[in-house]
């Protein structure tokens, strides 16, 4: 059995007056995409920050590649983990190429190699490097910005990718486009990915596995086709919201979601 890329063992994490994660357990195998769904405030972002050690658990253990995050040098750990945020966090004082090149530069690459890599990545995420490399973040649309965010996260080819509501702020059409794009890239790169989202439809579109987070616990975690048969009323409520949405969806994600529609 392959060792887990990311593992939460009995993790508890509290903010003042609020238990965010409560004896939480989770296992993600290498090369898998886990999509975690939960309402806002369900602790989704906290969970990601526990993986790259922006936070450490109050109790229990988070392991990355079999090693407790507390034992990792946080800088080394974070360079192995790409991170994509909802509001992207592009550096406004750097152009697109410089934003993508920042991690390679931190890792000590020479600028020619870093520039070459930036070109590759922009092409990979569907932005022609010749056109976009010299643009500034405030000259991009939301979707383009998000693509740059993904390119930046992939820059030094990290084995793990964390995505926090990556497509949440986009219009539905762009979102569906990026979902397809993400699957295309993931089919090539085979990263270990955790995506958190409040949108069950997105989770089904992207995840090899879909987990449902509720009140600090993982109440379900399974392949999408298994999950749709869940009898848990909390899961069913989330599923209901998906079916209404999917009818209005574009065609690109239809293939993956058709199973769902047929069975509901």
């Amino acid at each position, binding site marked *: 059995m392959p060792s887990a890329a990311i593992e939460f063992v009995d993790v508890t994490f509290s903010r003042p007056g609020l238990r965010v994660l409560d004896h939480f357990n989770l296992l993600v195998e290498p090369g898998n995409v886990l999509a975690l769904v939960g309402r806002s405030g369900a602790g989704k972002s906290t969970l990601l920050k526990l993986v*790259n050690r*922006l936070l450490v658990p109050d109790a229990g253990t988070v392991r990355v590649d079999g090693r407790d995050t507390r034992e990792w040098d*946080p*800088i*080394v*750990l*974070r*360079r192995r*983990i*790409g*991170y994509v*945020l*909802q*509001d*992207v*966090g*592009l*550096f*406004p*004082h750097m152009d697109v190429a410089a934003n993508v090149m*920042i*991690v390679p530069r*931190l890792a000590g690459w020479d600028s020619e190699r870093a520039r070459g890599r930036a070109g590759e990545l922009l092409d990979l995420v569907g932005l022609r490097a010749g056109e976009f490399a010299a643009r*500034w973040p*405030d000259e991009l649309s939301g979707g383009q910005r998000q693509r740059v965010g993904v390119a*930046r*996260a992939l820059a030094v080819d990290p084995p793990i990718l*964390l995505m926090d509501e990556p497509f949440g702020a986009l219009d539905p059409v762009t979102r569906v486009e990026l979902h397809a794009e993400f699957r295309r890239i993931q089919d090539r790169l085979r990263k270990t990915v955790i995506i958190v989202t409040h949108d069950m439809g997105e989770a089904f579109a992207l995840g090899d596995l879909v987990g449902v987070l509720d009140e600090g616990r993982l109440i379900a975690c399974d392949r999408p086709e298994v999950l749709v048969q869940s009898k848990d009323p909390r899961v069913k409520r989330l599923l209901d919201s998906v079916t209404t949405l999917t009818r209005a969806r574009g065609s690109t994600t239809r293939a993956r979601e058709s199973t769902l529609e047929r069975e509901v």
Partner: protein
Amino acid sequence: MSRVFHFWLSHRAETTALLGQHVLLVAISTLAAVVVGVPLGIFAARRPRLASPIVGVANIVQTIPSLAMFGFLLPVPLIGGVGARAAIVVLILYGLLPIVRTTIAGLNGIDASVREAGLAMGMTPRELLTLVELPLALPSIVAGVRVAAVVGVGAATIAAAIGAGGLGEYIYRGLSMVDTTVILAGAIPAALLALAVDGLLLVAERQLTTRRRRSGRAVAVVGAVVAIVALISSAALARRASDAIVVGSKNFTEQLVLGELVAQAIERDTGLPVDRRLNLGGTLICDRALLTGDVDVYVEYTGTALTAVFHQPVARDASTVFASVRDDYARTGRTLLPPLGFNNTFAILVRADDARSLGLKTIADLAPVAAQWRAGFGYEFLERPDGFPGLAATYGLRFSGPPRVMDLTLTYRALAAGQVDVIAGDATAGLIKGLNLVQLEDNRHYFPPYDAAPVARAATLLRHPEVRSALEKLGGRVSAADMRAMNYAADVEHKDIRQIVGDFLSR
């Protein structure tokens, strides 16, 4: 206005040098305030609990009037005293608040997601600071530097009070001589300098704020500023001679004349370079400067030295006072040279009309009318042991209200304009003649003798015996009439002091 241009033309070298000193003072202190203030701001932004105390202290510092601040710093070793160093310290303290504040604001204004992205991609705190936080906070920081520099240009004019030079020297000199032309000759370039500094840094700030970073152009602007500063300050540096004899003076006309007199006497007799630190803000500042070696020689009055410097009881006999003061100076490493020849005692002055119509001749004649009169005195006269309280007791003077306190040089004008009815001026003041004032006789001999005499650092005189002989040659050369004439030429005829003194020495 054309008078001001004329003044600049005839004082070209001096004006350039003062402008240079001014720019240098502001540039050095602003730079130092950045070097101290930005890290302090970063520190405060990182620890929000410490931010408000830090800003609070900086706030309090800024509310201290600058003249008071110079006063506080006078006795402090290393950073205090007299001259450019102490001025720079004060200017740095003033510059800190805006810079610390805008650094904190700039850092706090950064989008949380940008900072989080940096951390999450494995930036060390230092990388986050230099690659992300400081570049993003830079426009805000530059705005703070701009405020600091403009405030600095203003505050630096006051630095002339402690002999730091700069354009304030003209302002103080003009105030002393009651000469608007000279005041404007300092105030106009200071104002223009403030506008120029404001404009240049505003351009730099705008360049940084527009997203499309023309960092090249921002660098060019900064480069231009640095070049201009270097150019102007080289003028100031060129004026500085390392082995120069430093001549000081207090900040009123007679002292400026005497300072110039001593300076020219040394230049003529010894050929040594002389650095003029004229216009120092009062007796204690001069004394302190002489003790620390910031000044080598200045002219003091025996009565002032006795009471204000050495805190001895007031004495009336001229030779006793001279001997006592000479001994006290000798004990503290200073040498009192022979008196110049006139006694600048306090003069109780009234308008000539009043003296005639009321038949006032002596201070005693004042007692019956005092109850309807208002008095106006300089700050020093109110406090000194040989000043107002003793005078009031000796002559039984009771005025209509507490004396109005104002700058010594303004009291003459206030008297002439009828705003006050009696003042305590200098017996040798040229304005007595110029403004048609009358001195009342001190018939009860209240005022101690104030014989003017150069006092020099003993070490300087040992190193340069020729300076001693030059100063000794001045002994007895300046009569009270000479002094009043020179003061009149400066105060009323607005003649150039260098010229007046030059003519006097060539006589």
